[in-house]
């Protein structure tokens, strides 16, 4: 087989995220492409064994991997509740293999998971073609650790390692690499290493006892598709954080993050707070507004300044982003989108902040909006957001989402000097003594002088300023001139970004269109449909050839995880364009099969 989708699911305390991550990394090291989808509840610890507490981690490994997969080929269900959730949400297909811990199907377990009968498999109506593999994970783990001296609770916590061992055997993953991972993971708690290694190894050896054939994933095509180099597996939020650090290092500025905890963006703050070795300054502010405002202060003072948030936080930051637009200061705003409106679905994914990012401020208030489209390219677009902000003296809003933030994929490690140059806007020497904050260059980009520079003292403002003197102005023509200046500055950025590229069968009469995190799903769907795909990372301004590309196709279907926001934007920007729409709003990534099915009917 070319690829396989595996889902680990259990209680939120069962260590499913760790198990899934280890398996993904092991597979990546063996030359597989990977795409992961952590799927966990909003509650930190829901009552054990209940449906609300089920935590899942899906990973797709092999070659031709663009998404975490619609449905699993292999399920590891640590308890009765997890199995039920998988069935209810159709998380596996009719020929899947399900490994279940038979020790967790006692009467009390079944009651907690709201089963009505004593026969869960029949009750769930699992198709007969599904292969159920019963493994007494709990008792086998207890047996494995009986001489360890560990208490019962700690022993039970190691069940996930036994399950991982079984799965490693099933896919022939080498034990030495897995053990190396465990050693790295528990290097601060060395006493845990030997126990976990024992359970993992026993699980692997137990695999031989199963009446199953080992599955072989053919990864030969991976090598052909991918650029040769050094790779790592990285989650979107971490990639975003490191992209910001790279940009700061590339241009020699200090990275400043002002932020406030909010799911699913908080990992960016965690990551950067831990990178003081890179000189990163993080202020955990008193609220979302102070997060962006401390960043604006740092930007005014000359730093590369960022703020990270999710939808509700972006709403709170709107006025301050308007200030940065008006004051023409560089600022990077990262919006890790989640289900909305209001507090909505904090741990689920959605693309519903698009129009808020583009338009959600008072006044004529243009800012740059870009979107990352894979966990790994969160690095590149975070870097790009910094580059655009510093070179053009503008706020840049980078859209990612829960799916990108928590999912991981392969990233090629590059050296800093392989990355694009960043040339922050400065101020010409001859303006010393004559500087004011309205002076701009031929591209309409304001010159940037920062406190500490002698002879460039000036007063910046959120009020309208005179287009020549830089002082407060309420003069009618001046306001219009300044609005057009700020717009021109954003418009000219279209000359500095790559043109829109068409993927897939360019000669088809059907074109799928999407933006941001859906690229993998749309790519796979376009392959299956034999049609073309135009995927956007640059949203405001749009790539220069957007109209030209979209008008070439008879049937243009805009697919997005919202109620048609990008389609609305394209209709506004491209007069008279005819667009079809496919929209999903379920807090989940697309399923490739659903896109294919719907587009075929259009």
């Amino acid at each position, binding site marked *: 087989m070319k690829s396989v989708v595996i889902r680990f699911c259990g209680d939120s305390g069962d260590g499913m995220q760790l198990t899934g991550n280890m398996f993904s990394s092991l597979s*990546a*090291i063996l030359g597989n492409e990977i795409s992961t989808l952590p799927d966990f509840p909003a509650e930190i610890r829901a009552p054990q064994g209940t449906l609300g507490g089920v935590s899942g981690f899906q990973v797709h490994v092999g070659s031709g991997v663009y998404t975490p997969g619609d449905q699993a080929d292999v399920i590891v269900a640590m308890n009765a509740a997890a199995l039920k959730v998988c069935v209810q949400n159709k998380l596996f297909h009719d020929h899947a293999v399900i490994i279940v811990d038979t020790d967790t199907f006692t009467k009390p377990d079944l009651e907690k998971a709201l089963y009505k009968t004593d026969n869960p498999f029949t009750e769930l109506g699992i198709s007969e073609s599904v292969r159920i593999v019963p493994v007494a994970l709990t008792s086998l783990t207890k047996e494995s650790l009986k001489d360890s001296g560990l208490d019962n609770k700690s022993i039970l916590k190691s069940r996930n390692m036994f399950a991982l061992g079984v799965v490693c055997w099933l896919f022939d993953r080498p034990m030495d690499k897995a053990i190396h*991972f465990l050693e790295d993971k528990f290097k601060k708690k060395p006493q845990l290493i030997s126990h976990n290694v024992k359970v993992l190894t026993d699980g692997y050896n137990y695999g031989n006892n199963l009446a199953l054939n080992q599955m072989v994933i053919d990864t030969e095509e*991976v*090598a052909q598709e991918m650029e*040769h*180099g*050094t*790779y*790592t597996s*990285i989650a979107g939020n971490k990639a975003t954080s*490191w992209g910001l*650090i*790279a940009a700061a*290092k590339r241009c020699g500025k200090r990275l400043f993050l*002002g932020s406030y905890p909010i799911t699913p963006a908080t990992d960016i703050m965690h990551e950067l707070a831990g*990178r*003081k*070795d*890179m000189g*990163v*300054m993080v*202020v955990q*502010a*008193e*609220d979302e*507004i*102070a997060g962006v*405002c*401390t*960043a*604006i*202060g*740092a*930007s*005014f*003072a*000359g*730093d590369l*300044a960022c703020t990270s948030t999710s939808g509700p936080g972006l709403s709170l930051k709107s*006025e301050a982003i*308007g*200030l940065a637009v008006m*004051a023409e200061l560089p600022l990077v705003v990262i919006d890790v989108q989640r289900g909305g409106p209001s507090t909505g679905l904090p741990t689920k994914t959605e693309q519903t902040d698009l129009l808020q990012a583009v338009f959600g401020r008072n006044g004529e208030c243009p800012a740059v909006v870009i979107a990352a489209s894979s966990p790994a390219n969160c690095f590149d677009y975070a870097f790009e957001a910094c580059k655009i902000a510093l070179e053009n003296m503008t706020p840049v809003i980078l859209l990612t989402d829960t799916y990108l933030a928590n999912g991981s994929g*392969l990233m090629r*490690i*590059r*050296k*800093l000097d392989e990355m694009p140059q960043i040339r922050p806007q400065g101020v010409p020497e001859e303006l010393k003594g004559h500087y004011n904050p309205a002076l701009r260059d031929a591209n309409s980009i304001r010159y940037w002088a920062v*406190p*500490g*520079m002698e*002879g460039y*003292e*000036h*007063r*910046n403002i*959120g*009020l309208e300023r005179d287009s020549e003197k830089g*002082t407060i102005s309420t003069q009618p023509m001046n306001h219009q001139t300044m609005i057009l200046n700020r717009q021109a500055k954003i418009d000219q950025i279209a000359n500095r970004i790559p043109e829109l590229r068409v993927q897939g069968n360019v000669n088809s009469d059907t074109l799928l269109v999407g933006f941001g995190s859906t690229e993998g799903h749309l790519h796979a769907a376009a392959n299956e449909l034999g049609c073309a795909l135009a995927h956007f990372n640059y949203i405001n301004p749009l790539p220069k050839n957007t109209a030209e590309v979209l008008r070439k196709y008879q049937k243009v279907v805009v697919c997005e995880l919202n109620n048609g926001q990008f389609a609305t934007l394209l209709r506004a920007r491209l007069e008279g364009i005819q667009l079809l729409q496919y929209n999903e709003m379920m807090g989940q990534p697309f399923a490739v099969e659903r896109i294919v099915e719907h587009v075929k009917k259009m």
Partner: protein
Amino acid sequence: MEASQFKSDQYVRFCPGCGDHAICMALQKAMAQIGIPTHQTVVISGIGCSSRMPHYLNTYGFNTIHGRGGAIATGVKTSHPELNVWQMTGDGDCLAIGGNHFIHEIRRNVDLNICLFNNRIYGLTKGQYSPTSPKGFVSKSSPFGTVERPFVPAELVLGARGTFFARTLDVDMPTTVDTMVQAQEHKGASVIECLVNCVIFNNGTHNWIADRETRAEHSIVLKHGEKMIFGANRDKGLALDYSAGVMPKLIVVPADDERVLVHNAKEQDPTLHRMLAMMGQERFLEDQKVNAELNAELPVALGVIRNVEAETYDQAVNQQIVDIQSQSKVTEFDQLMMTLEHWEM
């Protein structure tokens, strides 16, 4: 340096007779006396009459959005502790819309000089009551009198564990300048409550202490290490009276009474600082009293009431980075990347 070096070329557009004119001049004088060059001085403000101040000072300045000056100033100072950062704010900007930022910049003890212009009114939006308007105050938004309990800024500052609080009066230039210089010398969040007159919407709100004839009787300028003596003839002093029970009360005694207190602004315990700061504030807390009762009140404390040392946020944040960098084996970005699990493909 000269005060004129800190004057910008902008025409000062406060209303004629506004107390902000005096504070503007005091700031220019204080900055000259402090002697930090204009290019190393930054003045941040929010919105309101007081927040126009940066335009009139020939330093780096940023007139931002309503209430957020404190957060923006925190960003400037934390990222660049070498800069000398001032914040201009008013009773609405600072205590209403920006209240959260105000208490947190104080709690963190960011090394800022915060001038809180208190005229007990919203001026720029044309006359609504503010968080410091006296209870019962009649304004455009409270035509029948407010029913709200006001803030006393000093209580907020001390409640947020403030390290420096001073109060000054627009018409008392020497005390204002001296207080600003002391605020600059203090490392940490220094709050100066500047009592200013709004000649248009709340004219005379501070007259009971601002009038030349009565000022000496109704106010006391506190000086660290000096006896608490006031009055036109400097014949009155402040003392603690323990007769009423376990809670001592401040009372007025003759200046030569041996019980007259010596002001200690450096005392860590804020109890007495709060008692001093609260003198004369009761008239704002209940329905407006008439001036007839004035003589019964304690004098309003002016000058530096509290001035204690504590670690500043900006220094601590920067020091932590320096410490970790000096211990870290990873110093370059390329090295950092290789700390990730990696392999050749």
